């Protein structure tokens, strides 16, 4: 059916406008979707393409997976699992394998990913390139800490093995490196052992920010997973009122009799999908305030509830295309982390700013982070992190976001590159002190700038193109 069979085994391409998951940014890209390793190599080496970037399942909020007027390689079909060692729990798989697939295959055998973000629709390659963290960061660190080694297809066409002991500088430039060092063709990750597919969850309400922070510092060590939903519209004495949701993997004896017979068999729910965009006014200050109020009221303190893993880790995955809640113009997400000494002050200022702006944010999350990993561009560091959603209202939102970024910078905080759309090169360099080291390694491994993305040009990780 296709007439376009090009030489040197380049797979077919498509010129397409790709969007970020939140429907905020878009770029016209030359898109490839290789199904064989040789095709991937041909694309990376193709001289007609000025630069390329890999894209997993496109769940990032930032333009790190867009490449305006350049190549984008969809890695989703290079998704083969290569080996698994039952005794150690070490899985070797290609970069395009989805986290959800890993859960579906290995939870029934008693294994779970060591770290998971808030969605199961991410690839391992994308998760490493953004060094994602989960609700267990305070205890287990980010994903990079659980990657034993990876294979990196570099700009020169060579595949290098990298690990914390072999090519360590390249390894830590690749973990959190936004795909700019090469293509993560495969990785070895250590899965954690679990006895059930259920979580044992405690819910505690905190009437304001101080109460929430106090509960975190007093009792967080009891929980492997911990986060708080925070009401970003509450002001005054209720500023930062929260619902703390914390838990551990349930043991078999925690389960009710009905689930004990098949503790690892969790039925996946059918996902309803939002078939169209809601009008952009649907989520406004009033409706979100009502939602937040009812969420807070409907979550009284509870201890030891047993819930399936997916409703604990992936509540939003339960609704397909949930980004359409915000209407056609989409939304943006702001996530910053602050060092512990200043985090209380910074969070108060930030929440006051958001509360005053009346910008709706019904998905606001507060969490304690443990010590930073070694990834040169990794986001997590010890302290508190706050994530907020805001509907895209155009120009005035950009102004507001820049103010939040300045505020983060002023407090010694840093903004998550996987979610950012507004950072400047100067701000990025101050927030990420190891950025210069990253650039040096990038220059060494990819002197021609073969791997580049819209974001990399925006925040100065690569040179901008000559006209």
């Amino acid at each position, binding site marked *: 059916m296709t007439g376009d069979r090009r030489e040197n085994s380049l*797979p*077919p391409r498509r010129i397409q406008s790709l969007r970020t998951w939140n429907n905020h940014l878009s770029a016209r890209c030359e898109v490839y979707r290789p*199904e064989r390793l040789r095709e991937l190599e041909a694309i990376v080496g193709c001289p007609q393409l000025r630069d390329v970037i890999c894209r997993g399942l496109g769940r990032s909020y930032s333009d790190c997976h867009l490449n305006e007027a350049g190549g984008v390689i969809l890695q989703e079909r290079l998704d*083969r*699992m*290569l080996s698994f060692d039952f005794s150690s729990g070490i899985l070797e798989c290609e970069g395009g394998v989805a986290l959800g*697939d890993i859960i579906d295959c290995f939870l029934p055998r008693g294994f779970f990913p060591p770290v998971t973000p808030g969605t199961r629709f991410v690839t391992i390659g994308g998760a490493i390139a953004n060094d994602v963290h989960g609700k267990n960061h305070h205890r287990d660190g980010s994903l990079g800490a659980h990657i034993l080694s990876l294979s990196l297809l570099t700009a020169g066409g060579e595949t290098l093995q990298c690990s914390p002991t072999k090519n360590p500088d390249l390894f830590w430039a690749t973990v959190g490196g936004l795909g700019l060092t090469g293509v993560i063709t495969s990785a070895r990750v250590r899965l954690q052992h679990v006895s059930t597919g259920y979580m044992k969850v405690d819910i505690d309400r905190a009437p304001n920010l101080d109460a929430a922070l106090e509960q975190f510092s007093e009792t967080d060590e009891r929980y492997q997973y911990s986060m708080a939903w925070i009401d970003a519209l509450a002001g005054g004495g209720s500023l930062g009122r929260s619902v703390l949701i914390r838990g551990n993997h349930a043991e078999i004896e925690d389960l009710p009799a009905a689930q004990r017979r098949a503790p690892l068999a969790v039925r996946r729910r059918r996902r309803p999908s939002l078939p169209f965009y809601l009008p952009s006014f649907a989520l406004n200050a009033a409706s979100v305030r009502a939602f937040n109020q009812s969420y807070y009221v409907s979550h009284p303190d509870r201890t030891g509830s047993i819930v399936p893993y997916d409703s604990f880790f992936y509540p939003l995955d339960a609704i397909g295309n949930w980004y359409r809640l915000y209407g056609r113009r989409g939304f943006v997400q702001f996530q910053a982390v602050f060092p512990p000494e200043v985090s209380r002050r910074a969070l108060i200022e930030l929440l006051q700013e958001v509360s005053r702006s009346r910008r709706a944010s019904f998905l606001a999350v507060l969490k304690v982070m443990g010590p930073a990993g070694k990834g040169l561009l990794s986001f997590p560091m010890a302290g508190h992190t706050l994530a907020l959603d805001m509907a895209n209202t155009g120009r005035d939102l950009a102004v507001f976001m820049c103010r939040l970024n300045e505020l983060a910078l002023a407090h010694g905080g840093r903004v998550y590159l996987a979610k950012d759309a507004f950072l400047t090169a100067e701000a990025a360099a101050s927030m990420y002190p190891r950025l210069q080291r990253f650039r040096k390694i990038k220059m060494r491994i990819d002197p021609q700038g073969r791997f580049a993305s819209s974001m990399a040009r925006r925040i100065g990780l690569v040179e901008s193109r000559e006209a």
Partner: protein
Amino acid sequence: MSGAVLILGATTGIGRAVARELARTRRSLVVAGRDLEELQTLAADLRVRYGVGAVACRFDARASEGLGAFFRECVEAAGGRLEGVVLCFGYAGSQQRAESDWEETVAIIQTNFLSAVRLLNLAADHLKEAGAGFICGITSVAGDRGRQSNYIYGSAKAALGVYLQGLRDRLSGAGVTVTTIKPGFVDTPMTFGRPGLRGLASPQRVARVIRRAIERGRAVVYVPWFWRWIMLFLRLVPERIFRRLRL
């Protein structure tokens, strides 16, 4: 490993999805195609994901020689007995090139028809001897109605369709079912980047339909299902009007 299913053309697209779907439902597999390295990766994937036996064998459907030896190799790899054979390989080629370039025409017919017939003859004998099993061949809706945009490919697939029909008839008393699958547009490398295609069926969805069709011993299955009615309509359009549609 006994009673494995042989997937011919398993490396990419529908073939890979069918391999995974059958492995998911606990069948051992022999995955075959041109690119042995890729097939070995796929075999590893099937073993790791689903804990079933899987081995890779190489053949080239563009060549007219060596298919007999290849088939024997597959049977041996399956432990002497195949449970079924799914034929997924195909070569769409270029209609435009085929019109002026005889070699392209030959490549299309050799791949989609002659090699398919050679392999399915062997499969039929093997399964008939055992008195049980299935054969499933993937043809195309392109074979339902000759159209100027792809009639070389379409006619090769139509020929394969008639062959499968005859084979079904021959094996009907022998305990071997023969299923013809007619996919519409599926989201594979064959369609990626073609303009004007929307709402493509995912290979996973197609593979699920194929597995069910095999298990139920269905004769002819369109996937997605609505293609049956689209093609029925296109077949009923009189020649005089069809010519003006320029499809």
